[in-house]
């Protein structure tokens, strides 16, 4: 197999610090993103061992997972969250790590602020104690989530021990139909792969439909790589990437920009290179997608009905579907559009960027949220919030009946008190519909921002054309 010219290998190979006999390779980390939830034990371990942060200048911290999205002028009500946030402040101060704290225009979801600052660049390695670090692969970077012990390892050594994953190509052919978004594409790919189809692999997304995506759309697709089990997702950088990076705070300038560009243009998979695994997905065949189950691979088109578990190919899939339908309180044969919702959440590292908010706001223009539906919009960062306000999007959302919140992970994982009540059903632009993900007993359906907005107006699942 000709593996020499793959994007993944090009990025991997340039980061190998050492290949000790009988041990995993030692990989250099160009940027380490840190947040309040998975770092306190790592800093503590570092201090107990008398070690220092090796490269504070290659480390950046923000608070996102359990920050409040409302009442920021008040002390944080949850004492555990307050302690965790205080701990991050203290650790950043002690170790000289730059922290974008609550109140900073650069505070926000870690995977939104990296790209926004220009800290995510082609050919880099980025890691974070968060599985959605795969987001940054949209720039042709190798980016993946790690555990807290590994966070400590990176703090101490700026490297990670890694066994090289396999390389998988996901070829997305054709063109996304009108009304279909990158989120629908991401969910369509996961349906094709299954939740574990990508385990042990780094995916390179290729093909015409991928090239046609904006950077924000590419981030949505790479973000959800982990939901197919993949270690990371990557997209080769091109003029769309360079256009996005040009002029950002940490992007190279002048002669360095030109040198960087020369290098970045070489970060493509060469003609004839082969992959360990390959899958093809047709973008043209997609419709807006709604998940019906308790893993992100369990989804159908909005035009469809809840599937009959007996029709699934294996006993494992049948059992999983039956269990999911019981948890979700749904019956086979019910039309997706006949399912009503209690809450709508627009936000998260999957769909909390400006383009996502614009798409949702456009659907809401001149319309109202259905009576009794609680609707929340949580920008991915304080800067996204400010930019949206400069365009008047906050007013569109508020006039429609949405709560316009401050930046954070919020109801994506329900750590900060923005949660569903037991039995409540949501349409959510986030990435996981696991049991209880948005609050104990809550029932989550993953959708695009446009479908979330239309659903908020209709009170049941709806496409923008329905309202």
């Amino acid at each position, binding site marked *: 197999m000709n593996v020499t010219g793959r994007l993944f290998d090009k990025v991997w190979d340039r980061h190998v610090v*050492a290949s000790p006999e009988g041990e995993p390779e030692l990989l*250099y980390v160009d940027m380490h993103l840190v947040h309040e939830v998975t770092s306190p034990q790592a800093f503590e371990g570092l201090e107990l061992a008398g070690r220092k942060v090796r490269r504070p200048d290659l480390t950046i911290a923000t608070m996102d997972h359990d920050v409040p999205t409302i009442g920021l002028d008040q002390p944080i009500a949850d004492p555990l969250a307050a302690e965790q946030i205080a701990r991050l402040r203290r650790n950043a101060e002690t170790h000289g790590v730059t922290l974008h704290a609550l109140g900073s225009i650069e505070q926000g979801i870690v995977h939104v602020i990296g790209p926004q600052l220009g800290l995510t660049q082609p050919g880099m390695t980025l890691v974070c104690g*968060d*599985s959605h670090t795969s987001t940054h692969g949209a720039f042709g970077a190798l980016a*993946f989530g790690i555990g*807290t*012990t590994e966070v400590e390892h990176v703090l101490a*050594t700026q490297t990670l021990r890694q066994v090289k994953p396999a390389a998988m190509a996901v070829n997305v052919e054709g063109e996304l139909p009108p009304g279909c978004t990158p989120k629908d594409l991401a969910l369509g790919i996961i349906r094709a792969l299954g939740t574990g189809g990508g385990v042990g692999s780094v995916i390179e997304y290729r093909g015409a439909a991928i090239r046609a995506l904006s950077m924000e759309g590419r981030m949505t697709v790479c973000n959800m790589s982990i939901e197919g*089990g993949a270690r990371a997702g990557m997209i080769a950088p091109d003029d769309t990437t360079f256009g996005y990076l040009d002029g950002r705070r940490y992007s190279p300038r002048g002669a360095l920009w030109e040198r960087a560009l020369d290098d970045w243009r070489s970060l493509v998979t060469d003609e004839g290179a082969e992959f360990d695994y390959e899958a093809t997905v047709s973008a043209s065949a997609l419709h807006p997608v709604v998940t019906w189950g308790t893993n992100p691979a369990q989804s159908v088109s909005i035009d469809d009905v809840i599937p009959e578990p007996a029709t699934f190919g294996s006993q*494992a899939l049948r059992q999983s579907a039956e269990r999911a339908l019981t948890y979700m309180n749904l019956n086979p044969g019910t039309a997706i559009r006949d399912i009503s919702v209690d809450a709508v959440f627009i936000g998260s590292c999957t769909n909390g960027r400006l383009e996502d908010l614009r798409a949702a706001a456009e659907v809401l223009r001149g319309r109202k949220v259905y009576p009794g539906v609680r609707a929340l919009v949580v920008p991915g960062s304080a800067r996204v919030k400010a930019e949206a306000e400069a365009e008047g999007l906050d007013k569109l959302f508020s006039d429609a009946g949405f709560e316009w919140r401050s930046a954070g992970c919020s109801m994506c994982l329900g750590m900060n008190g923005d949660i569903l009540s037991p039995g409540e059903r949501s349409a959510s632009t986030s990435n996981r519909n696991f049991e209880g993900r948005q609050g104990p007993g809550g029932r989550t359906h993953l959708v695009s921002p446009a479908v979330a907005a239309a659903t908020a107006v209709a009170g049941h699942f709806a496409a923008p054309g329905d309202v």
Partner: protein
Amino acid sequence: MASAGIQRVSSPAVVVDRHDVDTDQIIPAAWLKRVERTGFSAGLFGAWRADPEFALNHPRAQSARILLAGRNFGCGSSREHAVWALLDHGFQAVVSSRFADIFRGNCVSAGLVPAEVSEETAARLFAALEADPDAAVVVDVAARTVAIPSAGIEEPFSLADYARWRLLEGLDDIALTLRHEDAIAAYEARRPEWLPTVTADSRPGG
């Protein structure tokens, strides 16, 4: 962080016969606010434990050191807290036909054995424990085998050499890596100039 090494685990097993068990189920997000590495036992499988029939509620679970679970165990969030919760409860090994990548790495980091068996072996183990739920299961890290002696089962599991060595010795990865300090410094000296470095700026509004 260094931990005590594990050679061999022998105990009754807790059986979770479900595929795609995600880390949100293993330890719900509310528990992630803790700033310690311990104290997660009560949160382990928090929502599922409300069901009195759930395997972890059986008296046998108190002495179980081995968890047998369906395919793709530990998918979803990167939270190492899931591994800490399993360790806190007393588990030393998990047996499954597939582990999610980040979870597997976290297991080796924290000293929980991820014993990955074939689908066929998993099916035999599930069947044997359904027939005799109290049967002793043996996970031998040195030999990389999982056995139920009373059912005549002994099969290999896969675990990379380095991961096996670390689990047997309970080694501190950072100390091992710092032996390569010269290579790290040499690498740093040749990184391209255009790569970003973060400038100090933690002012509110900055």
